[in-house]
């Protein structure tokens, strides 16, 4: 029940509509804010459509003990917000959902939880194991508080709490606690008492959060919502500084002192459930000049045209990147100085100054020859998954003769082997040549591979390995590492492979591209789906999956990436596509489950 309530809360949250009101409940020091905008989403489905799905009819609604989502009292026409905040060693996740009918909601809660409702002046509340469920006439909040281990307790606090604990235990037994003369708390008891103190502290923080959420105070957390696209169905904003603080405080007191102040980047994300694809746009927003320059210099460069000659017209998947290694390394020292210098512990101790840090990092910079590294790897390249092919391999198996003596036999089976090519730019061909010859130097017959060099092509042949052949070569300022003998020959002889116009365009326009022909990939691994359940799953996936493309480039000061997840088959839109697929998988699993149960019963 609790598990499904959480699921239901998640669904409700993901189904409410945009509203200005709940925005003002987000404190400016939250490190994560997200919103599901139902005013956009509600145009993409009807409640009847949702309630028609088998998994909703058989699992969600019966568990909610409701026949429809509409009887719970939630307002599905206004937006929901979830934010996370880290303060005083606690991390809280606050989910806010608008209410349409508070009476319906209260009845629903009383019916399902059978718990006493605490009525305060501004709100009503019940305590759940996972957190507090609190509401007023307008909205409901679910507040979950985790107290980290970063803040410890003094011996006095622990001893005081231990006595309270003992008093309570004695009272429960109808006895009176007699104070021990000298307290000795073993490790386990101390841990138990500390946990008790943590729970109490978390409870206190939760109470204070409830007061804040249900007060009339309105925050103006503009920063969090300024990147919100009015057309988006989902929006999220992460303040990296706050997120980092949360992670560091989770790690413990000693480590949290090393927290680095001064956020370098924030991340904003807008998602759109379009008709034929799910689109997710993510922006990395630099907060200072150093970070701006870092992003621009790394991702501001163009890919070398000749690298595009080896993509081919039918790649299964590829990923390209164009960055500037020299600029990145140069800039990295500035970033490092600023980053290390911002560590709270260093600032507090004052033993090491920023000048010391600068000196140390400049010293490292002297030792590292950025130009030499940048010459070797200029920073652009393409990895291509050319194909997934089947190969017949032998293995040892056993059969038993009529007297059950074991007879060894050799059988064969097909394995899926990846065929790939990695090609990248270099300005130091000579050194690269020396690197590619390393397998020859090391081997001398001792390792399970053979090495041959034909012309400029190096060939490493492995025995009974997942990948049997690796070819490498250096040519025209490029290095190729591939499993294809034909491709390395083409590379060596300066032959060019054709490339689709659309692939050429996106690779040249973007600093990063990752593209997956999901249908082709699934078709290639069909043989791996062996059971009838798996085969049906494969069929459902292959008939409905489209192409996945992720691109990223610098726009202004920001690194903007766009992920497009294409869909196929008959679906109203990409939102209902997700529900369709969940329902398909659910029904497929359920069918198999029934069979298993029947089969197991038959054995008994």
């Amino acid at each position, binding site marked *: 029940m609790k598990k499904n309530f959480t699921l239901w809360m998640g669904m409700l949250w993901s189904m409410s509509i945009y509203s200005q009101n709940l925005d003002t409940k987000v404190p400016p020091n939250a490190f994560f804010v997200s919103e599901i905008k139902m005013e956009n989403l509600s145009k993409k489905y009807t409640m009847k459509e949702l309630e028609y799905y088998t998994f909703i009819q058989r699992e969600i609604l019966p568990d909610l003990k409701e026949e429809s989502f509409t009887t719970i009292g939630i307002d599905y026409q206004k937006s929901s917000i979830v934010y996370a905040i880290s303060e005083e060693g606690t991390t809280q996740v606050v989910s806010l959902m608008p209410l349409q009918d508070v009476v319906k909601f209260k009845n629903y809660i009383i019916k399902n939880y059978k718990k006493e409702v605490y009525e305060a002046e501004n709100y009503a509340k019940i305590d759940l194991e996972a957190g507090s469920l609190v509401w007023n006439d307008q909205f409901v909040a679910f507040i979950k508080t985790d107290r980290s281990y970063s803040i410890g307790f003094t011996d006095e606090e622990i001893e005081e709490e231990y006595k309270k604990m003992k008093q309570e235990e004695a009272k429960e037994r109808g006895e009176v606690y007699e104070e021990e003369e000298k307290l000795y708390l073993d490790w386990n008891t101390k841990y138990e008492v500390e946990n008790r103190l943590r729970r109490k502290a978390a409870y206190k923080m939760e109470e204070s959060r409830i007061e804040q959420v249900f007060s009339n105070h309105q925050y103006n957390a503009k920063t969090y919502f300024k990147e919100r696209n009015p057309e988006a169905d989902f929006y999220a904003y992460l303040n990296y500084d706050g997120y980092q603080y949360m992670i560091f405080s989770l790690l413990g007191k000693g480590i949290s002192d090393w927290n680095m102040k001064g956020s370098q980047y924030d991340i904003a994300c807008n998602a759109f459930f379009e008709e034929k694809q799910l689109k997710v746009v993510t922006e990395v927003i630099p907060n200072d000049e150093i970070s701006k320059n870092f992003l621009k210099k790394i991702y501001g460069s163009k890919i070398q045209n000749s690298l595009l000659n080896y993509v081919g017209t039918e790649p299964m998947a590829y990923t390209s990147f164009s960055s500037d290694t020299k600029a990145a390394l140069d800039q990295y020292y500035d970033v490092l100085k600023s980053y290390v210098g911002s560590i709270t512990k260093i600032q507090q101790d004052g033993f090491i100054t920023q000048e010391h840090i600068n000196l140390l990092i400049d010293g490292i910079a002297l030792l590292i020859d950025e130009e030499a590294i940048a010459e070797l790897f200029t920073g652009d390249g393409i990895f291509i998954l050319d194909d997934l092919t089947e190969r017949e391999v032998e293995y*040892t*198996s*056993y059969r038993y003769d009529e007297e*059950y003596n074991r007879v060894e036999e050799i059988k064969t089976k097909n394995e899926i082997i990846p065929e790939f090519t990695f090609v990248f730019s270099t300005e130091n061909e000579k050194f690269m040549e020396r690197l590619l010859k390393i397998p020859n130097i090391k081997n001398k017959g001792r390792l399970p591979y053979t090495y041959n060099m034909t012309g400029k092509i190096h060939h490493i042949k*492995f025995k*009974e390995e*997942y990948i049997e052949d690796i070819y490498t070569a250096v040519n025209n300022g490029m290095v190729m590492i591939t499993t294809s003998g034909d491709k390395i020959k083409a590379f060596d002889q300066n032959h060019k492979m054709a490339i689709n116009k659309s692939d050429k365009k996106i690779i040249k326009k973007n600093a990063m591209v990752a593209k997956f022909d999901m249908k082709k990939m699934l078709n290639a691994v069909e043989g*791996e789906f*062996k059971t009838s359940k798996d085969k049906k799953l494969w069929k459902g996936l292959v008939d409905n999956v489209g192409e996945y493309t992720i691109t990223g480039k610098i726009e202004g000061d920001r690194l903007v990436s766009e992920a497009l997840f294409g869909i196929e088959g008959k679906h109203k839109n990409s939102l209902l596509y997700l529900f369709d697929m969940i329902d398909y998988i659910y029904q497929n699993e359920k069918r198999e489950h029934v069979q298993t149960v029947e*089969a197991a019963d038959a054995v008994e």
Partner: protein
Amino acid sequence: MLLISSLTSCFEIVERVTLHDDGSGKAVFTLNMSQSKTKLNSIMKMETINGRKVPSKSEIQEKVKRVEAIVRKVSGISKVKSTLDFENFIGEFFCHFTNVSQLNEVIRAMQSEGLIKKDLSVKSYAYSKEKKEFKRIQEISLKPMYDKMTAADQKVLEEATYTSVFKFDKPVGSYSNKSAKLSASQTGILFKAKILDIINQKKTIKNTIKTTN
């Protein structure tokens, strides 16, 4: 098991016990991962996979030697031997016993040395000379352990098989496991099943076998 868990392919476990009328005999246990040998060849070159350390050949050899040493100390157990074929990824373990129940002591000894899980059944074999009755026992259900496994680990078990061959001096008069089959001379009995079917209790490895006098 750690290494097996990293695979998506299959493996087979074979248990062969030859039992004489006086309760003595020999046992051979085989782990055949030959079907996954190309993947294992690649995995063996890695330090870790799925967050778990991949043991080196020498570490595996060392562990097997340790097992041998522990088993040798068990009273009544003799001619302990093991083989490791890293080309085909087949491991075998051989031993002789004066009473089949000593194999239970082998399991207990390995458990106390932390070489196998404590929650696995210790009492696996029993033999009564008087009744001429051999029992293959399975006291503990494997289902709870399976349910605790990650989805990836569960996937590994999908195609895995278990085979047992028990041989006797005299023909088998009766046996309880309906999935088992008798040999032509009726002195041997074979049982083969998918490990998943055993876990899900569709099939059982339990068998009570009585030989004729």
